């Protein structure tokens, strides 16, 4: 809720570079029915959330820049130009450097993935915000209290 100016959004190439990172956190489901987080296309949504935390956004930008540097060492123009297996190798190398992605990136990935309508619909969960519609909850079966009442007072007399 700070009023600091927002950093610039990630470029299209940076968003593409983020996708395999996100797929690493949440890979495609084993039966193939649900996509991975990168495949689902949440990178831009994630970027929008991270821009509100400039310090963390800057760490993500730095990590992406380091991935490009690692790609250049591998003879590619940038990270997104690497073959998938080489991308994984670069990501592995990055994780042991000071430019590793911040752990909070994973939390926000979870957050953006599990609010996506496709994922919610798969689990039969509502795809709308809780308000203003809310939910109808059935009246309680208060006969369940019969044994509690039958037992009588349990408070300590003073």
């Amino acid at each position, binding site marked *: *809720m*700070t*009023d600091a100016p927002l950093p610039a959004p990630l470029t299209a190439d940076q968003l593409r570079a983020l996708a395999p990172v996100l797929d*690493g*956190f*949440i*890979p*495609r*489901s*084993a039966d193939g029915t*649900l996509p991975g987080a990168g495949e689902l296309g949440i990178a831009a949504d994630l970027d929008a*959330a991270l821009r*509100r*935390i400039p310090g963390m956004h800057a760490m993500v930008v730095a990590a992406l820049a380091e991935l490009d540097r690692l790609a250049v060492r591998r003879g590619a123009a940038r990270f997104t130009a690497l073959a998938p297996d080489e991308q994984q190798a670069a990501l592995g190398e990055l994780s042991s450097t000071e430019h590793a992605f911040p752990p*909070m990136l*994973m*939390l*926000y990935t*979870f*957050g*953006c*993935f*599990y*609010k996506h309508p496709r*994922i*919610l619909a798969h*689990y*039969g*969960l509502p795809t*709308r*915000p*809780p*308000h*203003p*519609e*809310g*939910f*109808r*909850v*059935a*009246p*309680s*079966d*208060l006969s*369940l*209290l019969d*044994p*509690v*009442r039958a*037992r*009588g*007072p*349990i*408070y*300590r*007399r*003073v």
Partner: protein
Amino acid sequence: MAEQPVDVLIIGAGASGAAVAWSLAETRMRVVCLEQGGWMKAEDYPGTREDWELAQIRDWSPSPNVRERREDYPVNDSASPIAASMFSAVGGSTILYAAHFPRFHPSDFRTRTLDGVGDDWPLDYAQLTPWYNLNSRMMGVSGLTGDPAYPADPPKEFPLPPIPLGRLGETLARGFNELGWHWWPSDSAIASQDYEGRAGCINAGTCLLGCPHGAKASTDVTYWPIAIRRGVELRTHCRVREITVGPDGLADGAIYYDAAGVEQRVRAHVVILACNGIGTPRLLLNSRSSHFPDGLANRSGLVGKNLMFHPYAIITGVFEEPLLGYQGPTGCSLMSHEFYETDAARGFVRGYSFEMLRGFGPVSTALYGLVGGRVLPGPGHQEAFAQLVDRTAGIAAICEDLPEPTNHVTLDPELTDDDGIPAPKVTYRLSENSQRMLDHAVARGQELMAAAGARDTMVQSPLMLAGWHLMGTARMGRDPATSVVNEWGRAHDVKNLFIVDGSVFVTAGAVNPTNTIQALALHVADSIKRNLATLLD
């Protein structure tokens, strides 16, 4: 021209500040309240957005250190296993609370006599009962009379029927019955039906992020509108630096920073603190003068001492079938006081209550699963998530903390808020008694989940981000050597200074404290009114 002194200055517009302001409004005295936060707007609460669960990670975290709003002040809680939680706004921490609203038990006011621990309060359950009942009407509390965990006479009064248990609640209720343990529908400061201009709850389940519907009884929608209509002046975005003292040693007002950060001065005949169990000792310790070199009203040396939280454990059952746990108020369904009172055979004194939690939304399921090591990143993540989503039921054990002078609030030598006012530092360790209680609660919670049909359980104990209940740091008592305020909240050292928040608690009980905080505030206000003619004699 300097502003004329106001009759009563209240600092803090949360649970207790609102109640005391409302009560004093009828006196026609000039009452002014300074609040460091502002008015919340229903449309700003995240429950209306698709990313509502994401908001809890940072912007709507219960911790001011995580949120970092301009209105917040930082708390150095690095020397505590439990992180302080609070919110600064009109309504205070009731904006984010679960609104679980039980009362203390009669025994809570007599722990020294009954169990040889803590201290007895200078008042008792019967004295507070009329104020509990008045507060119940003002806040619009939903509940069911006849709970055998409380005396039948005088009865607990509820203007509204209880919040529905839901499928999840009934599942756990059957588990309690299987074990023969007490349970009862929660006392809830949530309107189960339309009440006094507030809409009834729609079971959206976003209580911990503010209630856009206004069904949850945060004091910005209960006490404050009435108090303001009756003439109380509420000044928002005003952060108090110190309470000032006149040559006679009485409080004579406060110095504060307004919304523009400009220093202002307000003079007052009576000052009432309602800043919570961390904010109040912070302000008293920041108010040093020649009369009070160790902090205002601190001749006993007890300001800031005896900080009590409620250590929490969360036991989550994993069930085979969907429980629709995302439907209904987050923390209000049912409660159990089976283990509330002392039983020496358990290996600890005093006890704990259980408060049922509804299930998690999908994001919370993933994050909680991550913390619990059940939903890890990488291969198998989605399969692990599918095992948990809408199949969890939680129960919180709220353990009574005992007062210990070594658990305390002091001023941090370096950390300040945005206005340069020294921030509080919390030093707290979990006692052996509390740890044994937590362990017992976890074992009983797992037993309950098994009885209710859970195939598995997850446990968090102690819960770190659980310092919602801030108590004991300016305790109440009759002896000025062993307490800070008397039995009606008046500082022993400063007869026109009153405290009405959780600081005055002598012991912590084992239930959420807001109802008791507000009942005490109403009791203090009534005492002020009854003693008005001789208040400063």
